[in-house]
C-alpha cells in the first residue's frame, strides 16, 4: 500500500458502478445505506438479477439429461458459466471447476473425499491459526472419523503466519494443508506461493480458501499451482447458494466422490455403481442451475470492470480507511499484517464491539461485529470480537468518511 490515494482519477468509474447495484440506492431508517459488510456478502449488480429472471422466464429446465430444446439451452448456459469461471481463474479445463453450494460446501467436499480416499490413522492435516470455522470444523470432523490429527500454523500479534514454524511443522505425516488466502477477521493476505512451494517440495497438496481473495485480486490457479481452491458466489457479486471448487484434474480423478445421486454416475445397479467423469462425478443431484448461470454473469461483470482495477481501487480504500481510522481516539487495529486486503478489524478502548455496531447501524452504517466465525483468532487476541468494516468495488471514500464520523459519534455516546 505505497500508493498515494488518487481519488480523482480511479481506473474504475465507481459512481457508475454504484448505479448498477439496486440495493445501494436503498435507505435504512430513512438514511442512505452505507454498506460495509462486504466480507459477509456483497450486493448484486442488476445484470445478475436479470440473468436469474432471464433464466427462469426463458430457458428454465433440468440440465444434462434432457432431449428437449429447453434442457439443451439450460445445459448450454450452465456449462457456459463453467467455462467463464474456468477462464476467470485460468483453470486448465472447465472440468476442473466444480459447482458447489459455497466455500463451506467445497471444503467439506474435499475434507470428506480426501478423508475417505487418502487419510490414514495418524496422518496430519495442517490448518492455520486464522482460519474461518468453515476451514476448521470439516477437518475436525474428518480427523475424528479417520483417527487423524489437526495441527495449526501459528501467527504473530500482527496477524501474520509464522513461516518458520510452518516449515518446522512439515513432515511426512502431513497429508494436506488447508489455509486461507485472505483472513476474513484480520484482512491478512497470506504468502500462499511460499506455502504451496514448501508443501509441494514434500509432495503435500494445498487447499486454498479463497472466499476473501477471489473478489479482491487476480487469481490464476495454474500460476499458483494450487491443488484445490474454493470460493463462494455470494461474496463475488453473485447469488447465494452457489460456489466453486477448483481442483487439479489429477486430484479430482483420484478422489472418491462426495455425494451420491443423479448425474454423478455412469451406471447404477444395486451391486455396482460406476461414477461419471469430471466435473459430474462431484455434482450429484440437480445443481443450482440459475445460481451457476448468474454467477457466470457476475464474473463477466467483474471482468468487464477489470479485477486489476478493482484491486487498485480497493488498495486505495484500504489505505484511506486505515489512515482515517487512526484519527479515532483509542482505536486499535486487530490485525496489522503488512499485506492486507478487503477488511479492517478494530476495537475502541473497552467499548464492546456489539454496542458500537448497534449505534453504527442506527446511523445507517452496516458493519459486522463479533468473532466473524473465527473464534480461535479472538481467543488468540483475548478479545470477545471486533468491529469489522469490509470493502467492495463499489465502496467509496465517502463511505469511509461516514464510517469514521459514525464511529466518533457512537464512541462519544458509549464512553
Amino acid at each position: 500500500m505505497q500508493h498515494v490515494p488518487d481519488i480523482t482519477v480511479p481506473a474504475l468509474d465507481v459512481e457508475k458502478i454504484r448505479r448498477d447495484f439496486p440495493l445501494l440506492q436503498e435507505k435504512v431508517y430513512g438514511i442512505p445505506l452505507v454498506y460495509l459488510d462486504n466480507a459477509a456478502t456483497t450486493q448484486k449488480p442488476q445484470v445478475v438479477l436479470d440473468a436469474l429472471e432471464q433464466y427462469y422466464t426463458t430457458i428454465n429446465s433440468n440440465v444434462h439429461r434432457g432431449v428437449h430444446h429447453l434442457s439443451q439451452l439450460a445445459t448450454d448456459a450452465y456449462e457456459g458459466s463453467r467455462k467463464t469461471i474456468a477462464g476467470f481463474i485460468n483453470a486448465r479445463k472447465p472440468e476442473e471447476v466444480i459447482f458447489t453450494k459455497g466455500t463451506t460446501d467445497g471444503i467439506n467436499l474435499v475434507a470428506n473425499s480426501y478423508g475417505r480416499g487418502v487419510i490414514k490413522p495418524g496422518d496430519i492435516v495442517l490448518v492455520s491459526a486464522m482460519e474461518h470455522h468453515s476451514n476448521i470444523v470439516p477437518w475436525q470432523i474428518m480427523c475424528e472419523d479417520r483417527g487423524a490429527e489437526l495441527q495449526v500454523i501459528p501467527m504473530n500479534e500482527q496477524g501474520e503466519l509464522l513461516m518458520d514454524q510452518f516449515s518446522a511443522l512439515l513432515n511426512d505425516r502431513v497429508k494436506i494443508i488447508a489455509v486461507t488466502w485472505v483472513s476474513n477477521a484480520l484482512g491478512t493476505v497470506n504468502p500462499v506461493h511460499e506455502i504451496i512451494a514448501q508443501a509441494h517440495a514434500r509432495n503435500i497438496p494445498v487447499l486454498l480458501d479463497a472466499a476473501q481473495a477471489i473478489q479482491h485480486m487476480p487469481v490464476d490457479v495454474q500460476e499458483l499451482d494450487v491443488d484445490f481452491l474454493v470460493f463462494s458466489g455470494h461474496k463475488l457479486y453473485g447469488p447465494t447458494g452457489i460456489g466453486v471448487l477448483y481442483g487439479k484434474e489429477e486430484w479430482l480423478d483420484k478422489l472418491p466422490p462426495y455425494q451420491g445421486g443423479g448425474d454423478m454416475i455412469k451406471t447404477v445397479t444395486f451391486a455396482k455403481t460406476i461414477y461419471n467423469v469430471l466435473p459430474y462425478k462431484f455434482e450429484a443431484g440437480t445443481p443450482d442451475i440459475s445460481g451457476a448461470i448468474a454467477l457466470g454473469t457476475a464474473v463477466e461483470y467483474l471482468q468487464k470492470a477489470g479485477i486489476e482495477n478493482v484491486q487498485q481501487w480497493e488498495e486505495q480504500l484500504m489505505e484511506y480507511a486505515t489512515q482515517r481510522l487512526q484519527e479515532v481516539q483509542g482505536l486499535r487495529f486487530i490485525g496489522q499484517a503488512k499485506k492486507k486486503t478487503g477488511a479492517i478489524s478494530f476495537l475502541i478502548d473497552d467499548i464492546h464491539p456489539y454496542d458500537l455496531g448497534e449505534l453504527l447501524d442506527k446511523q445507517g452504517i452496516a458493519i459486522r461485529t463479533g468473532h466473524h466465525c473465527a473464534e480461535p483468532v479472538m481467543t488468540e487476541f483475548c478479545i470477545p470480537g471486533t468491529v469489522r468494516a469490509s470493502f467492495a468495488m463499489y465502496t467509496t471514500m465517502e463511505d469511509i468518511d461516514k464510517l469514521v464520523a459514525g464511529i466518533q459519534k457512537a464512541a462519544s455516546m458509549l464512553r
Partner: protein
Amino acid sequence: MTIKETQDELISDFSFMENWMDKYEYIIQLGKDLPLIDEKYKTPDNLIKGCQSQVWLHTEMTGGKLVFTADSDAVITKGLISLMVNVLSNHTPKEITEADLYFIEAIGLTSHLSPTRSNGLLSMLKQMKMYAFAYQATSQSQKNGTEL
C-alpha cells in the same frame, strides 16, 4: 410504584424522544445508573450467555421482595437490563410472575433492536420470571410445611 406504573412511566419517557439515537443515549445512561452486581456474584452460575455479549444476573430476597442486580460487558445491554431491573426489582415474587410486561413492545424495542439483542432481552426476562417462580414455589411449600 407498581410494575404497571413503572412501565407506563418508561413508555412515556421514551415517547418524548424523537429518534433512536436519543433513545439509545437514554438506554446507555440507564445502564450507567444500574445498581451494579457485587463482583463476588459474577459467577458462571449467574451468567446468561447471550450471543454477542455476556450478562450476569443476581437475585436476593429482602423483606418479601425480590431485588435484582446485574451487569454486562456491553453498555447497551446493560441499559436494557436496567430497564428490566427497574420494572421488576423490589416486587414480590407473586407480582413478578403475574406481571404483564407490555413496555418492551410499546417502546418499540423488539422491532428496533437487533434480533440477537432482543432475544437476549427475552431470555433475560424469562430468567427473572423463573427466579420469581422458584421463590414463590419455595415459600409456598414452606407455608404448606408449617400448616401440616
